[in-house]
């Protein structure tokens, strides 16, 4: 096979791969939407009880400009909270992996932090700190950083001992060990933690909006349902889903890019 035919062959494979991965789930989703539409129409379910897909698509375009500022608030809060929790989670993980005593003392507390239902505290905290975004972002950080942290610590502790031995044979100091051996070896574990943290950031961010404050997509859902505007409420759910997909997908793409060098580990 010449170089040219090889390249062309590889390109066709990629397009077929793409279609193969995209068509099945899209067909499933399309089928589910059709079932939904049919059931609502057949049983004459009124729009103030449950919106049909056709109603929702109308709402998506009509109310977009109205929803946009809330969309911006939700998207920025969750993204900022997520990024902060990743940074804090990783930094703490490096400290915990380097100083055993710190680990014993802090780990149970960190586990506890993600189990505390911060969402329930949001209304109370907002009374004190105001209705702005700070309370929501802090909620996201507290709920999400433990997931980054716990997975990173486990990954650091489970570094391949033979690979570590190379570092020992060269008498590398802790910083060098981390940089050249432990961090690269732990990447897949770290990414697992980051993906879980993204899910938690979504949940914490949206729930915080639903319980306190008056901005954000979560808040709009409660607001619209109050007036039985189910189509507009569902359109907010879709915008939230889009953010979740973009965030999770972005992380997966980044993971593939960073790890592709040593796939056949």
């Amino acid at each position, binding site marked *: 096979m010449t170089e040219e035919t090889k390249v062309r062959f590889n390109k066709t494979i990629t397009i077929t791969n793409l279609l193969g991965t995209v068509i099945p789930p899209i067909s499933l989703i399309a089928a589910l939407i059709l079932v939904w539409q049919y059931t609502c129409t057949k049983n004459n379910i009124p729009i103030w009880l449950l919106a049909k897909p056709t109603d929702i698509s109308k709402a998506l375009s009509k109310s977009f400009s109205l929803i946009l500022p809330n969309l911006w608030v939700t998207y920025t809060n969750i993204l900022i909270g997520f990024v902060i929790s990743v940074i804090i989670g990783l930094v703490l993980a490096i400290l915990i992996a380097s100083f055993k005593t710190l680990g014993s003392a802090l780990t149970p507390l960190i586990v506890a932090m993600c189990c505390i239902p911060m969402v329930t505290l949001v209304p109370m905290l907002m009374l004190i700190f105001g209705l702005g975004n700070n309370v929501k972002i802090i909620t996201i950080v507290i709920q999400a950083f433990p997931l980054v942290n716990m997975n990173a610590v486990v990954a650091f502790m489970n570094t391949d001992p*033979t*690979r570590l*031995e*190379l*570092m*020992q*044979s*060269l*008498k*590398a100091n802790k910083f*060098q060990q981390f940089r*050249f*051996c432990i961090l*690269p070896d732990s*990447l897949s574990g770290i990414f697992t933690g980051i993906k879980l943290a993204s899910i938690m950031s979504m949940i914490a961010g949206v729930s915080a909006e639903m319980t306190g404050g008056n901005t954000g997509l979560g808040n709009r859902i409660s607001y619209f349902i109050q007036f039985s505007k189910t189509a507009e409420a569902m359109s907010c759910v879709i915008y939230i889903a889009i953010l979740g997909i973009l965030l999770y997908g972005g992380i997966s793409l980044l993971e593939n890019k960073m790890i592709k*060098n*040593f*796939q*056949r*580990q």
Partner: protein
Amino acid sequence: MENPIISIKNVNKTFDTRKHKIQALQDINMEFGKGELVSIVGPSGCGKSTIIRLIDDIIKPTDGTITVDGLTYDNNKPISKEMIRKLGFIFQISNLYPWLTVRENVLLPLKIHGLSGSEYEANMEHLLKYVDMEKYADVYPAELSGGMSQKAGVIRGMIHKPQMLMMDEPFGALDENTRETLNIELLKIWKETGMTIIFITHNVEEAVLISQRVYVMSSHPGRVTAELKIEFDKPRDLDLITDLKFAEYCTKIENLIGRIELAQIK
């Protein structure tokens, strides 16, 4: 021996596992002269790998003294950076980091020792050429064959121009042809650099082919049972394998190992 560059005196090593203590080494006494190529052979579990890890200060002895290049190791403190730069260590499995290219793997010890400069870059290019790996310098380890990975691991261990090289069964996982080729290449590198090499292997033929001296060990616990000088009139190359004296040495060592194992069964 007068002025050995490495000397191990009365060294014992006991490992503490969850269930019981294992004595890996018992009263080990060994000496290595400057520029010598010495092999340590023995059955698995006799502590050969433990000995070179003690010399490279990866682990500490339970008691006894290790003296390297005039410096006696402190059993409670790690050795200095200058000392570790004089030593090189090559692993059983190439232990290349899969996220680095061959070139980056080979350069890694320089980064950690804080060495830089054109002499080392030149050394790297020279070594890559020497083992026929220049074409693969920017390739990732996942794409290399076993022999190529091993070669990369070997030149990585030598990149910082150590005076003393520890090799832990470096060719054990390779097929016979590749192993023999690499043995001859190692001899060439040894002649060119004048390094002191301690070579661990369970392959008696390999030991007889390349070494000037052989230590024979037994296991449970690890002890030195014999020391042999290997002398040939002819130059060391693959033709030597057919020589009568070669076969004599091999048989002698195999008998020593076999006798020990029989004794243990009694």
